[in-house]
C-alpha cells in the first residue's frame, strides 16, 4: 500500500437545534471507506463523534449519511479526497451523524426487490 495521504474531513456535529462543521485531518490509504475515516476519527482524534454502522458491506443501511451532498452508505463509499459528511436526514437527526431510522416502512418490507429500504424516500 502506498503512503497514506492526508485529507480534510468536515463533519457536521450537533443536533436539530444547533450544528456546525468540524474539520479533521485524516490520513487515508487507497481504498479506505468513509466509514473507515469516521472510525479513525473516533479511535484517534475525537471519541465524542456520533455515528452508527453494522454490516460494513453495504447491506444494512445503518450507516447512511450524506457525503459531499449525496446520500450514500458510508461503508461502501471510498474516501478519495477532502469531503463534507453530514447526517442523511436533518429532520430525524439525533446527534452528529446519527439519525433515528424510521421503522422500516410496510411498503419497503413488502417489496422484496427493494434492497435499500430508504431508496425511494431519500433523494
Amino acid at each position, binding site marked *: 500500500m502506498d503512503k497514506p495521504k492526508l485529507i480534510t474531513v468536515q463533519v457536521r456535529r450537533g443536533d436539530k437545534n444547533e450544528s456546525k462543521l468540524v474539520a479533521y485531518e485524516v490520513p487515508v490509504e487507497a481504498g479506505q471507506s468513509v466509514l473507515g475515516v469516521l472510525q479513525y476519527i473516533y479511535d484517534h482524534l475525537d471519541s465524542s*463523534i456520533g455515528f452508527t454502522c*453494522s454490516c460494513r458491506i453495504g447491506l444494512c443501511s445503518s450507516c447512511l449519511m450524506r457525503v459531499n451532498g449525496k446520500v450514500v452508505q458510508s461503508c461502501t463509499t471510498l474516501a478519495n479526497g477532502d469531503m463534507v459528511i453530514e447526517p442523511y436526514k436533518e429532520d430525524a437527526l439525533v446527534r452528529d451523524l446519527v439519525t433515528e431510522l424510521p421503522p422500516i416502512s410496510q411498503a419497503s418490507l413488502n417489496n422484496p426487490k427493494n434492497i435499500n429500504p430508504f431508496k425511494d424516500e431519500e433523494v
Partner: protein
Amino acid sequence: MMSLLIEEELCCDVLVIGTEGTGARAALEAAEQGVDVLAVTKGFMARSGATLTADGEIDVDSRSARNLFGVDGSPDDCPEQFAKDMIVEGDYLGDQRLVAIHTEEAPARVKELVDWGAQLEGFIHAPGHTYPRGLWIPGLKLARLLARRMVKSGISVLENTMVLELLHDSDGVMGAVGLHLPTGKMLLLRCRSLVMATGGAMRVFPLTTAPEELTGDGLAMALRCGAALQDMEFPMFLPYCFLTPPSLRGVIFSYDVSALMEVHALNRQGERYMARWDPERMERTTRDINSVAAAMEIRAGRCSKAGGTYLSFKHLPRNLVNFSAEWFPRNLRSWRAAGFHLRSFFPDIGEEAWEVAPACHFWNGGIRIDEDCATNVPGLFAAGEGTAGIHGANRLAGNALTMTQVWGKRAGASAARFAKDGKLRKPPTTQIEKVVRKFVCLKSDSSGPTVTEVRLEIRRIAGDLVGIIREEKNLQQALKAIADLRRDLARQHVVNQDSRFNREWVEGLQNENSLDVLEAIVLASIARQESRGAMYRVDYPATDNDRWLCNLVLRRKDNQWEMQEAPVNSLYLSLPAGTRTYGRRGESNHG
C-alpha cells in the same frame, strides 16, 4: 439510591434479546403461544446483526427439499444422513440428540418461511454435505420477512437498546437492565422468562466477517448469571477473506471466489504452500485446514506485504475470468459483492493477487442448552449462534440459517411454556444497583486507558496470542494480559458525556463482555491438548479421540472459573477411537 437512575420499567412475559433470525423466530413462536413478548435489539431491527449478512443458504436434507419444494434434490438423502454429516464435520463434538432434532425439524421450519412469503432463489451443493442441501434465501430478505411478521403479530420491539446485565436469584431470571442508546436512559425490563439470541462474539478478533454488534454480550451476560458455556475453544475462521484495501478488510467475497474457481494460495515467495498441507486437494481442502495453513505461513514470516497471504487467479485465461461475471451466483454477479464493486478496487480482475487472511466468521460454541433450549439457569433460554452442541467443533456451510429457525422456534415455545407457569417477580434492588453502579463507574472513573485502547488491546490479545494457531506459551501470556486488562476495565477512560448514542459507553460495556468471552476461549484452549475442528494447537497437532472426545464446560462462580469435561452425547453414531493427523475426518471431507 442508585436504582433511582432507572427511568422506565417495562414488563412482559417473555423477553427476547436479539431480533434477527433466531430472536425473531423465538418472539414469533412465543407470541403464537399467547404470551406477551418484548424483543430488544442493540441495533436497528432488520438492519443489524449477522442474519442479514448471510449469503443465503439454509440447509435441509436433500430428499425433503425435493419433496417439499420441487428442487433437484437427491431422494437418497434423509435427515439421518444430514445428521451424520453434521456430526462427522463437527469432528464428533456435536450433541447427537440436538443434531437429530436439528435435521428432523429443518424441513418444517423452511416450509413455514416459504408459506410466509420467502422465495427460494436456488439450490446448491456446498462442501461437506453428502448431497445438495442449500436452499437459497438471502439473509437480508429473511431478516425483513421475519421483521414484517413481527410487526404484523403486534410484538413490541425495542430498538437501539443494549442489555447490560440479567437480573436473577436462585429461582431464576427475573429480567434485565437495558440502556436505551438514543436517550442514555436506563431501563428495567421485567419478565417471567428470557430468550438469549444475541449471536456470536466474532468481533473479539481483529479480522472478522461479522457485523459490529457481535461482541459476545449474550454469552458473557449468561455466564455472569450462572449459565454454563461449552465448546468455547472453537471459534470458526474462514480462509481467504480480504485483508486490503482497508474498506474490504474482513470482507468475505474473496473467500466466495476461492470456492467458485481454481485459485492459487501463495506465500511471499510465490510458493503454493498448500502442497505441504494437502498435496492432493491443495486449496480445495477444508476451510479449517486452509485457515491453519495460511496462519502458519503468516507466523513463519512468509506473509504478504499487508501481513496475509496472496490469492491469485492469474493462471486462468482472461476470457475464462471474464466469463465468471456472468455465471457467478447472485451475490457475486458481475463482480459486484453486496454494496461493493470489486472492479473499482481491481480494475483488471485476475491481474493482481489479492491479499487475504483467515477471518473469524462464526461461533461454534456458546451457552450450553438442552433440547428445549433451556440453560442451567431457570427461565433462561438460549438459541442460535452462541449456543453449543449443534455444530460441535466445526459448522457445515448453510447450517447457520437453519439453526436460527429450528432453535429460535424451540426457544420461543419453551420460554412461553415457562412464562405461563412463572411469576413476574420483583428483581432485587441490590442487583439493579450493582448494574447501575457499573455504568455510573464507567461514566465517571477516568483514571485508566480509554475504551478504544481497551478494545484494541482485547483484539491484539485475541489476534496475536490466541488466534488460529494456538500454543501453551502464548495462551498463558494471553491469560496474564487478560488479568492485567481486567484491572483496567473498571477504570476505563470515557471522554464523551453526551447521553445520545454515546459510542464510548457502548464500547466500554462491550469490552467487559468481550474480555469474559476471550478468557473462556483461552481457558478452554489451554485445557484441550489436541487439535480438532476449528482449533489447532501447534504444540499438540494431532486429533486425539481417546483422550479428547469430550465437551469442555465452563462456569464462573464468585469470579472463579470452573471447568468440567462432559461426555459427548452419542445416541446415534458411535465415536471414533485412536489418534489421527489433524483435519483428516474421513470420506466426508469436502473437495
